[in-house]
């Protein structure tokens, strides 16, 4: 009976109700998008960093991984000590250098990664074979490399290193065989990267001191030990920067503080719009139906029941609006994500808007609570109106 009264009351002004529902839907969509934006970047970044299970990164002191061309010196003894740590399951060095190759009369530049194939957190094999730890003639390429060069698995290619910018003459050349096509997890869209054994790229790269790495990725046996291991490495190796995924996510968050604040401000605005819509419309509806509420009280409905009726109207409006808004929000999130992921140099695996059941539920609950709360004032007006006086005014 209560719900029949509530639903049919809302249908008395179909245009008005439709507009309110639409308004709430847009507000709910914006809220959902902003909730996704506020947590999505971190979630996506964290997921990307942990995609191969490596929880700690070592980089040159004062830098973030791949932030500069700086390198960690003395990598062999450092790796030896890391491998002795009983909490560490794997420690994979990575060295990055610009490498080149002549492709159909033009010189093409690549990002070259030197990796230890037995403990690497940098790529996933798409086709062909992975390298073995002892394979010093194998090469891994990415799809953009294959598209640019036309190289396929089994091709022999000559890579040039330490290119002199004045003469375009290579300081070193090495012929490698393409073993597989991989997806580099941290590459930007379209980035041309290739990989070879760690020692091979060390030799090809412009490093006066050969025993260097750009980064070391560390897999800790249990997640609980990550902070402890990071602290231990920090104290034992003060010359390197030690970052767990959690600290990298914090740094990432600090760099993208603007998006957090924007999402907070826009989420607040969308909530205000939703609250104002529900509050205004229900206040007007309650004033229009003051006589009806007085009659309901005259025939014995308690104040709490009247409050319930008005708040139920607010809840129905907001619930329908938030269901529509969730669909709308998911569609607009994809559109907005496409805009933001076109940031130059951003890893292709990063998303700004990550749909997740908990985020969607949170946005829906927040807008629902806001909508129901917005009905509190009109509900109070409906319940507090003096019966006799309202009936008298209604009869005049």
């Amino acid at each position, binding site marked *: *009976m*209560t719900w*029949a*009264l509530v639903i*049919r*009351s809302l*249908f*008395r002004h179909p245009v008005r109700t439709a507009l309110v529902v639409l308004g709430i839907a847009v507000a709910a969509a914006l809220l959902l998008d902003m909730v996704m934006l506020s947590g999505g970047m971190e979630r996506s970044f964290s997921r990307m960093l942990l995609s191969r299970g490596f929880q700690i990164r070592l980089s040159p002191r004062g830098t973030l991984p791949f932030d500069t061309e700086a390198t960690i010196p003395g990598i062999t003894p450092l790796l030896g000590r890391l491998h002795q740590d009983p909490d560490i399951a794997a420690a994979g060095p990575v060295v990055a250098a610009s490498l080149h190759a002549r492709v159909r009369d033009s010189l093409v530049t690549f990002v070259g990664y030197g990796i230890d194939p037995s403990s690497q957190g940098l790529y996933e094999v798409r086709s062909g074979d992975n390298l073995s730890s002892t394979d010093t003639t194998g090469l891994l390429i990415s799809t953009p490399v294959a598209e640019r060069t036309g190289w396929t698995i089994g091709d022999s290619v000559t890579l040039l290193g330490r290119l002199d910018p004045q003469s375009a003459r290579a300081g070193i050349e090495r012929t490698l065989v393409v073993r597989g096509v991989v997806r580099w997890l941290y590459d930007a869209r379209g980035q041309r990267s290739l990989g070879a054994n760690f020692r091979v790229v060390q030799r090809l790269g412009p490093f006066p001191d050969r025993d260097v790495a750009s980064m070391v990725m560390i897999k800790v046996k249990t997640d609980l030990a990550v902070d402890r291991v990071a602290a231990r490495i920090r104290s034992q190796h003060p010359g390197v920067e030690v970052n767990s995924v959690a600290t990298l996510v914090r740094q990432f968050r600090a760099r993208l503080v603007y998006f957090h604040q924007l999402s907070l401000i826009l989420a607040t605005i969308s909530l205000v719009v939703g609250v104002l819509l529900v509050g205004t419309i229900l206040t007007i509806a309650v004033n229009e139906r003051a*006589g*009806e509420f007085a*009659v*309901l*009280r*005259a*025939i*014995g*409905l*308690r*104040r*709490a*029941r009247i409050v319930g009726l008005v708040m139920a109207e607010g809840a129905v409006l907001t619930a329908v609006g938030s269901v529509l808004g969730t669909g709308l929000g998911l569609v607009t999130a994809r559109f907005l994500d496409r805009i933001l992921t076109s940031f130059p140099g951003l890893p292709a695996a990063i998303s700004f808007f990550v749909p997740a059941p908990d985020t969607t539920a949170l946005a829906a609950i927040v807008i629902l609570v806001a909508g129901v709360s917005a009905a509190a004032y009109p509900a109070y007006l409906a319940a507090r109106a*003096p*019966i*006799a*006086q309202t*009936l*008298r005014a*209604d*009869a005049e």
Partner: protein
Amino acid sequence: MTKSPVILARDVVKTYQVNAQTITALRGVSLSFAAGEYLAITGPSGSGKSTLLQLLGGLDLPTSGHLELMGTPIERLSDAQLADLRLRRVGFIFQRFHLMPVLSARENIELPLAEAGVRPAERTARALDLLAYVGLTARADHRATQLSGGEMQRVAIARALANRPALILADEPTGELDARTGAQILDLFDRLHADGTTLVVVTHDEHLAERAARRVHLLDGLVDRDEIARR
């Protein structure tokens, strides 16, 4: 044995604030009546009839004086207790019917039953019985807005009877109806009275007032005459 009065009013005064002006609607009304009575309250506009009816039904509280409904002083009742009293012991009939326009005739009657916690099957059966009593079985599923004035008032009477109240209060129940339809409502009131319902009717309608067993005439917020009709 003397029956205890359904209503007992002593020196009831009611004033209103309209803008900055104080209006005294009732200046000290005293009256009582017993179960089963059929009482008409008459008087010119502004004499305080509707105000008195609203006080008798617990819709408002007197400014001063003493008012008992079924032995309970209403000034001692909380808002929730007053609502409960109106739900179970008092039935209201209004001049402008005041049905819920979005509900059907049956649903309008079921509304107070639902509020009183009657189970759905039972309240539907009771609503249909009452519709049959007021002669509107065929209109059970019509929305209130699809009914004529007379039909709406009959549904309003059925709604007032839903929880078998001890007292029915009616405010100008024929005021919005033509003479023929009004006469049908008066017949229905006679039937209610004959069935033992206590009825208090505020009216300008001389025909209605003549049918009541007792007439209280108000003038300027005071009881001017209180007379038993001779039959």
